[in-house]
């Protein structure tokens, strides 16, 4: 089976005023259809930059990123992104209009179909009552739900999530993770999910790419059985990843 997304030896760099930052160095991985693929690593491992590369906001200086065999040139609605920030919703549109907006601007759906799909997905994320409300009246968790509904309603080839639950409180975060898994059971989308939380990675993902920091390099690619596996398996995997990332830090401290 050919993978949906192929990232092959990708080096990503960006310039700040003073110097050139190498975010990732020769990173490669493959995402298959239906994967809940996690990019996990400490801050500064370039996982968000990598996601921006896949989204098309940043061109790799080395290597290639291919979706369905085609190289990614620019941002496009076939890879819908869910950001961490709550201000990703357009404040001048209601919840329903926000979900409809990409469907209409990309011309992928007609007005009637877009509206039906929008309402269906808003109901799926449990916000049926709030369809005609403006985003500033929603809580953080609700805004993220709208952003997820907006991305999913587009039926993108792959969903890109950049720490979507990081700015939420712990209880809401836990709930959102469960809801995401339920949605996956229903729709079986493909998602590339960035997080710095080992716990979140183990709960949400079925496959976890562990990255090392400064610059980001692949340290391991692991399988998680997800919630279904439950119990000891998850805890064991968590501590395994923890040791992996922690060992890195000790080595570095010794080297310094």
């Amino acid at each position, binding site marked *: 089976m050919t993978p949906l997304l192929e990232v092959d030896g990708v080096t990503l760099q960006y310039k700040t005023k003073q110097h050139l930052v190498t975010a990732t160095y020769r990173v490669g991985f493959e995402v298959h259809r239906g994967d809940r693929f996690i990019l996990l690593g400490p801050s500064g491992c370039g996982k968000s930059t990598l996601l921006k590369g896949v989204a098309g906001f940043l061109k790799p200086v080395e290597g290639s990123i291919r979706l369905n065999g085609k190289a990614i040139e620019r941002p496009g*609605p076939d890879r819908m992104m869910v950001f961490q920030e709550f201000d990703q919703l357009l404040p001048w549109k209601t919840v329903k209009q926000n979900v409809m907006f990409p469907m209409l*601007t*990309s011309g992928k759906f007609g007005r009637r179909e877009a509206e039906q799909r929008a309402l269906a997905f808003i109901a799926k994320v449990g916000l049926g009552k709030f369809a005609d409300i*403006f985003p*500033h009246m929603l809580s953080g968790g609700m805004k993220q739900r709208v952003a997820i509904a907006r991305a999913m309603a587009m039926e993108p080839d792959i969903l890109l999530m950049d720490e979507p639950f990081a700015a939420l409180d712990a209880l809401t975060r836990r709930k959102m993770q469960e809801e995401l898994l339920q949605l996956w059971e229903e729709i079986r989308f493909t998602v590339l999910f960035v997080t710095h939380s080992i716990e979140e990675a183990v709960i949400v993902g079925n496959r976890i790419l562990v990255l090392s920091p400064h610059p980001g390099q692949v340290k391991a690619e692991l399988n998680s059985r997800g919630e279904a596996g439950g119990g000891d398996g998850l805890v064991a995997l968590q501590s395994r990843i923890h040791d992996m990332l922690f060992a890195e830090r000790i080595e570095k401290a010794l080297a310094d």
Partner: protein
Amino acid sequence: MSERTAILPPVRPEFVRKTLDASNVGEIVRPLSAWERLTNITAVRRIFILVLLAALWQAYTVPLDNPLIFPTFSDVMAALWKETINGELPARILTSIKVLLMGYAAGVGLAAVLTTFAVSTRIGTDFLSTLTAMFNPLPAIALLPLALLWFGLGNPSLVFVLIHSVLWAVSLNTHSGFLSVSETLRMAGNNYGLTGIRYVMKILVPAAFPSILTGLKIGWAFAWRTLIAAELVFGVSSGSGGLGWFIFENRNELEVANVFAGLITVIIIGLVVESVVFRTIEAHTIRKWGMQR
């Protein structure tokens, strides 16, 4: 000291409670007193200030008794009423507003072109910032002699100085509004495949609308000031002059109450545009969207 270390919080029993069914609780309201309700209305508070000012004016001018220098408030109101009834003032207002709208619309249109150019290219940004730095501090009225030379006596000269007074204020605010649109919103827009003019119209303009509206307000005030001043300088063009000319004429005829009536008309129009036109736009856009309280 030994006493302080002995302080321990008391051990209290634990408890677990059943919560009440609060799902169909309606609105819980605290009734406001009539005075609170009255003073909660912005219009009431503002009218109170206006009445106070009018009373002070009357109290000062009645003992002064010098209608040539400072007529009483009641005299001015009478003059205002008379000039409105005989159709003089409405005709002047119409003349002024017509020119004003022409200049304002042209200025805003040019500003839109200039800022779109400025956000899409780097040279456009430099062009806009250089021009605004040069021309924004230049009073529009200072260009009037030149405008008269180029376009002669008449509306084209007025429109020219009006464009100058509107263009830079609106461009500056719109551009700074565009620059402050959050990175997340920009990326979201790009993510949907929006580029070029669609990106500007569908993402940047609404996202920067608070700044754009501020620019439009400042531009309006500048234009109104400039117009009255310009009319005072060269007055009548085609038969009937505008409000500025009305003020100038009446000063020459020593109809001081009419001069005040003209000034008050200028103020009233400014207030109406600010508190009716712009406030309505605000209520239906940025306030509804939660961008401004």
